[in-house]
């Protein structure tokens, strides 16, 4: 692979590139699903190829190929340079980047049990048993399970001399029980909705989930939701479960801090950001108890945003995003860091595959644990609604106004968890919401949740991001609007 990398860099240089970096990526994936007791998807895929990014005539070009021969990668490099020259037709200024060191390294993410070495029968048997455990609960009309495993090898080389190999194994699993009754569809998922939990790691994740214990429980909850009262519309106190808080962080903190959005580069598709440059170190983003970091280092945990180097060859870092409630930092690249005068990239550039351009992506954007136990938090709450497990999510294209609904909620009355509520939702304005946070639970409740389906870019790229979160409390939140007029 290094030969292909080196040869393509040589050709790019010969053709006039002033900078180039190249990635060979080998991506292997296994997908298993079941539905109502039968195998659904059963497939495996593999993709390998090379993508090269160059600066020529002061402008960017990128080309990719699956022709892994010396001629194939040479043609690809030449095409990238030609594209860069075309880009320079509509150039305002030359591409400039902050400096970065040169690294020669090899790194492998955590993986105790290679999921591709686990017998398929073991994986399918577990999914089918969980499926059956849900389906036999009276009233369940649809039971579904899924497992997904990926093994991604990346060889990165740059014209600056870096040569970095990384291997990341990603595992994910989830189960869902759906109940159609009367004129309503209700569902419950475990451990999270929309594909479950995903981490950087191996089959040990699946073994830790205890699927067979939770399968009947969520199925019974899905049935019970049909006879639960409707979540009321009101202004009041809200407690969010950890996985929902993780998605709240993703949408209302993670995306707004992407510097490419802030600088208008995503204006046509993913949108821009209310976090204009004047707000850096000058915005009370959240209440003083809120501390949020973007941390790609393995030390933070085995998240979908964990790596050793980003796809520009910049080492993984921790960035303070919100410190004691104050807005403290963006997610940056070498080019965007230069644009706003930062001395160094935050190391957040990642590409979905060999045929995609690296772009600024969330790493692990996590809220740091607070001091409360969950029991103490509930005990301290007079009147609230506790919402858990996302059902829908939406936010405007500058990341001000959001609305989320969750699968399930419970009333909190006089310090006790009470009756179940169906169709819960809440909405608000980002900074008002985060400034209303008055309690975050402790490290015992903190989970590094994986969001495997973050879409951004044109052509669209789907990336996994991590969000460490523990249940937290928010005051004076608009609750129940989504269903109030139906």
């Amino acid at each position, binding site marked *: 692979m290094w030969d292909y990398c080196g040869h393509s860099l040589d050709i790019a240089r010969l053709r006039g590139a002033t900078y180039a970096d190249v990635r060979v990526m080998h991506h292997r994936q296994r997908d298993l699903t079941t539905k109502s007791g039968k195998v659904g998807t059963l497939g495996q895929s593999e993709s390998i190829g090379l993508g090269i990014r160059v600066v020529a005539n002061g402008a960017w070009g990128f*080309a990719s190929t699956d*022709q892994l021969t010396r001629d194939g990668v040479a043609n690809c490099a030449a095409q990238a340079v030609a594209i860069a020259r075309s880009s320079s037709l509509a150039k305002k200024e030359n591409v400039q980047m902050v400096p970065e060191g040169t690294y020669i390294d090899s790194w492998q993410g955590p993986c105790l049990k290679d999921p591709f070495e686990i017998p398929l029968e073991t994986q399918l048997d577990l999914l089918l048993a969980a499926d059956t455990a849900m389906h036999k609960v009276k009233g369940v009309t649809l039971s579904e399970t899924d497992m997904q495993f990926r093994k991604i090898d990346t060889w990165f080389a740059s014209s600056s001399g870096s040569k970095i190999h990384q291997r990341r194994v990603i595992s994910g699993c989830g189960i869902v029980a759906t109940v159609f009754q009367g004129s309503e569809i209700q569902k419950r998922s475990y451990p999270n909705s929309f594909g479950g939990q995903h981490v950087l790691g191996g089959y040990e994740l699946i073994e830790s989930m205890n699927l067979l214990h939770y399968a009947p429980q969520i199925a019974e909850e899905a049935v019970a939701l049909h006879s639960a009262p409707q979540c009321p519309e009101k202004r009041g106190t809200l407690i969010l479960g950890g996985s929902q808080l993780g998605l709240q962080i993703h949408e209302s903190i993670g995306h707004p801090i992407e510097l490419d959005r802030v600088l208008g580069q995503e204006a046509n598709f993913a949108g821009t950001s*209310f976090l204009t440059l004047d707000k850096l170190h000058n915005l009370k983003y959240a209440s003083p108890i809120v501390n949020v970091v973007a941390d790609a280092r393995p030390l933070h945990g085995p998240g979908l945003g964990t790596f050793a180097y980003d796809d520009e060859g910049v080492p993984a870092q921790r960035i303070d995003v919100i410190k004691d409630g104050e807005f403290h930092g963006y997610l940056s690249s070498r080019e965007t860091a230069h644009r706003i005068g930062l001395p160094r990239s935050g190391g957040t550039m990642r590409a979905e595959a060999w045929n995609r351009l690296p772009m600024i992506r969330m790493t692990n954007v996590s809220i740091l644990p607070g001091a409360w136990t969950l029991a103490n938090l509930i005990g301290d709450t007079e009147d609230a609604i506790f919402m858990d497990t996302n059902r*829908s999510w939406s936010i405007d294209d500058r990341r001000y106004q959001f609305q989320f609904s969750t699968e399930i909620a419970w009333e909190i009355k006089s310090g006790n968890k009470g009756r179940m509520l169906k169709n819960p939702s809440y909405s608000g304005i980002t900074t008002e919401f985060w400034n209303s946070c008055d309690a975050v639970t402790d490290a015992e409740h903190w989970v590094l949740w994986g969001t495997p389906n973050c879409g951004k870019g044109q052509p669209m790229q789907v990336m996994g991001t991590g969000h460490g979160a523990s249940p937290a409390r928010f005051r004076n939140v608009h609750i129940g609007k989504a269903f109030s007029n139906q």
Partner: protein
Amino acid sequence: MLRLAKARGVPETEVHIDESIQALTRFANNTIHQHVAEQGLVVSIRTVADGRTARVTTNRVDEDSLRAAIDDCLSLASHQPKDTGLLSMPGKQKYRAVRRFDPVTANLTSEERARAVKSACQFAEKHGQVAAGIFSSGQSQSVLVNSRGLAASYRHTNATFSVTMQQGAAASWAKANSGNVRQFDPLQLAKIASDKAARAQNPVELTPGRFTVILEPAAVLDLVGFLFYDFSATAVADKRSCLSGRLGKPIFGRNITITDDAYHPHQLGSPFDGEGSPRQRVSLVDQGIVKNLVYSRRSAKQAGTKATGHGFPLPNEYGEAPLNLVVEGGKISIEEMVSSTAQGLLVTRLWYIREVDPYEKVMTGMTRDGLFLIEKGKIAGAAKNFRFNQSVLEMLRNVEALGLARRATGEEAFEMVVPPMKIRNFQFSEVTKF
């Protein structure tokens, strides 16, 4: 691949080959900031042996890798319980010819795209605006064969131009997509977006509530697009479709007629589905009544009917879906819709649409890039963007006027042929800051 599989003694084999060459020029801040090209070929194999099937996909096409893919597929399939409902692969089929390959589009160069982008950016600068968007073009071809004699092939070209024009805090947008790049004019699209951005200044904040709205085709597309999966026979059988218990009933207004038609002149897409069944034209909704669903071979057998050619590649748990929706239009222009509206809103585009209630098909999302207040039959100015929580079923009962149906493209759903619509009592629930 078929020969290699036969030599391995595989009873039934299906091979799907997709080749794609794509390029995209992306611009923002009146300059090109990303400019990419890709080419790739993917081989996907499915085997059936002893009532078991699986799929393996690879882009390694040397003979050893292809042999390994066949072995992996057999191994995957063998480790699962027997599927008594698994069908034998279909034999030879006849397909209706479609011509969707345009050499000019296929051969569009990075320089040609860059020059078009430069014109749009210069237009923006001349008008004190900032342009962002994409100009993409490419070609794809696919071949599907199986060991029972089925052989199908298809190729098409594609081109898209999308532009956002920003003026101060306001923005507007225009987008076109076609199999033939000469079917749209990038500069004209830039001018449309520019004009609307200029008119989107100083938006007023309105109180959320129910409004008469005029949805431009992209806004209709992105909402109606969320219905496509509900017409899957498998989704209805699974009781997760909003059409469960509603077949044959008048659930939309009498002015709503929807077909799935892969052969419509404004559609792109292959004349066969993931199993190689020929795509049929299916009447989904006729004058407000749900008439038909779409079927894969398996769901058709279970329902005692014929496959409609809408199945996904096997194995999968979703069955099928219509991917070439055509919503019948009318003759009322958007200008006429505006002039007949005492008070309402003109919606350019919707954003971040998600399902809130799957059975009532309540969707939430935001307006984006141009929300205009209509008063006494005229555009009175811009309004701050709203969040909606609206049932699509109810919405399609409240359509007061339909415009000319055309190929529309948005960001949340497949391209389809839809008209602009004037709709009463559209539910906006909250307002944002811009």
